[in-house]
């Protein structure tokens, strides 16, 4: 549990898992995939940010949010607004009736840039907003819900309703938000063309870098006493309360953390994909994010990353050949996870592959020195807590 120096940590069992992921994302995939496929992996990884947030919020603290798409989308829209303003110079939009405003506003007979768009001329403001806007909304929802002790299924339903509301709002306010098409035709970031293959590859590495920063931040929270309080809250909320903790403030914190992470993911999505639309905000993407997290293993941060990668890769592969079958496949996957391996891939790994590691020559002995740190509770207690609630 205790790590003394970064070097010691990197050679511990957990450190090796992180190194392996880094090796895969920074060396293996860039060397084997072409720029187009690598960009797709980059897109999948943006969902991993949301999945890491859900591991903390749902896996550790037991708060299921079915509205992470909201925060992902807000982060993405903040970035898209900045890029759109940069693309909408008076010269580039000289054929509009009002040059200098985004094209969709012009189509909707808006003649002046709305006030809330103004600050997005500034890149530093945008970078702050990418995290601050989702966190602020999460804070408001969290305070309103958790201080009133709304939890469990009710909370999940409310987050889902918020996802629906935000989608409707974005689509309805076409002149302000680009409506159902979203904010499209994004070209440059501070004058740097983000549509070239080279730019996409650079953005991929930025995305991987930020993913590791997010993983380490989440890991820091998980290993602090706060992480154990989150787990304790999941098991016995009342006991935590009567051990002198204001449970609501801890829930608000972890919900904001998850929202901030999702926001970063959303901004990176916009940069790599080149547009943002309501279809990444609503109920379906929010539930997909829960599936990534569940499949990867909701108690494991790395599990969340692998879950996002694998489900999205499967989704692309599957929908390229059988587009109409994908929703069924995904539904089946989710049922399979819930019934057969509730702790996800991370749980399967711990149960079946970890015992085999010891048999490996050299490495096996080496890993054996480190006693594995159980990430997931035994399945039995999981079922018990399900019965209780």
């Amino acid at each position, binding site marked *: 549990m205790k790590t003394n120096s970064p070097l010691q940590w990197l050679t511990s069992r957990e450190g090796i898992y992180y190194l392996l992921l880094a090796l895969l994302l920074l060396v293996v995939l860039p060397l084997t995939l072409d720029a187009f496929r690598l960009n797709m992996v980059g897109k999948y990884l943006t969902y991993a940010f949301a999945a890491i947030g859900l591991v903390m919020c749902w896996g550790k603290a037991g708060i299921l949010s079915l509205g992470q798409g909201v925060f992902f989308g807000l982060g993405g829209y903040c970035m898209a607004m900045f890029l759109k303003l940069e693309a909408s110079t008076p010269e580039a939009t000289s054929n509009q009736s009002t040059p200098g405003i985004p094209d969709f506003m012009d189509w909707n007979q808006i003649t002046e840039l709305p006030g809330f768009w103004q600050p997005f001329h500034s890149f530093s403001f945008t970078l702050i907003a990418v995290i601050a806007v989702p966190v602020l909304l999460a804070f408001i929802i969290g305070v309103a819900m958790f201080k009133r002790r709304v939890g469990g299924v009710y909370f999940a339903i409310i987050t889902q309703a918020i996802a629906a509301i935000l989608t409707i709002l974005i689509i309805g306010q076409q002149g302000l938000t680009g409506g159902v098409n979203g904010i499209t035709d994004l070209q440059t970031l501070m004058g740097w063309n983000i549509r070239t293959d080279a730019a996409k590859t650079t953005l991929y590495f930025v995305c991987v870098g930020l993913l590791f920063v997010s993983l380490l931040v989440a890991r820091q*929270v998980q290993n*602090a*006493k*706060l992480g*154990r*309080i989150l*787990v*304790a809250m*999941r*098991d*016995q909320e*009342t*006991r*935590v*309360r*009567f*051990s*002198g*903790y*204001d*449970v609501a*403030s*801890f829930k608000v*914190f972890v919900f904001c953390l998850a929202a901030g992470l999702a926001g970063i993911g959303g901004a990176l999505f916009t940069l790599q994909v080149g547009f943002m639309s309501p279809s990444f905000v609503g109920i379906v993407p929010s539930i997909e994010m829960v599936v990534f997290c569940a499949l990867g293993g909701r108690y494991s941060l790395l599990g969340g990353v692998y879950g996002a990668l694998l489900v999205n890769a499967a989704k692309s592969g599957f929908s390229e050949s059988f587009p109409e079958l994908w929703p069924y496949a995904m539904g089946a996957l989710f049922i399979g996870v819930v019934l057969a391996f509730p702790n996800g891939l991370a749980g399967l790994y711990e149960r079946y592959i970890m015992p085999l590691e010891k048999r490996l020559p050299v490495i096996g002995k080496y890993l054996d020195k480190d006693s594995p740190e159980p990430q997931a*509770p*035994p399945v039995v*207690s999981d079922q018990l807590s399900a019965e209780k609630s």
Partner: protein
Amino acid sequence: MNAQKENFLLAVEGLTVSFDGFKAVDDLSFYLDPKEIRVIIGPNGAGKTTVLDLICGKTRATAGSIRFGGNELTKMKEHQIVHAGVGRKFQNPSVFEDLTVFENLEVSYPQGHTVMGALAFKRDAAVIEAVERIADTIFLSDQINEPAGLLSHGQKQWLEIGMLLIQKPDLLMLDEPVAGMSVAERKKTAELLRVITRDHTVLVIEHDMQFVGDIADRVTVMHQGKVLSEGSIEHVKKDPKVIEVYLGH
């Protein structure tokens, strides 16, 4: 009466709670002296657990006051009541099953109770010393790194008592601490409570009259949300009203 009031650790006066018109606790008053061991007994549904719920803030009073030290508990939030010095053990052992015994006690250690505090919290020598000392008191030194989910029922009860002790509360409230325990565990628990009661004020709900006789300074008998009788164990045992509704003939 009023001059005396300041000497009480806990003063419950006119406490009433009504659930849809049913008065689970009805105009209840009692007083605890510092370092006193008080046992509440009474038939099922007498409102014993509800009294503890009201004191620790789990249930809100309809009327009346609960004064503890200088604080009016009826107006405080649960975690504030804990910080004021009231610890509560629940009837069913509620420990954190996925955490080890050490972590269970560490979470209860009275430091780093805010979000920022919990992020910055360091497991220093003082914490380790306190946790190990308490683990020793509650007979769990050998299990200190085991997940609490693997403990026996009795051990979980002890762990929860330990989690209260490490908070250093002025008032400890225990709801049926020996229920569901084996004879051997029961004996050890009585021993544990004797150690605890040396320097805490304790409010216990218990049915086992032998056990009550062993530990109680004074006994309060409750019936239908009211105090039926109060005094030494001999006194209440002889009280005809108590014999009628609770002890039987």
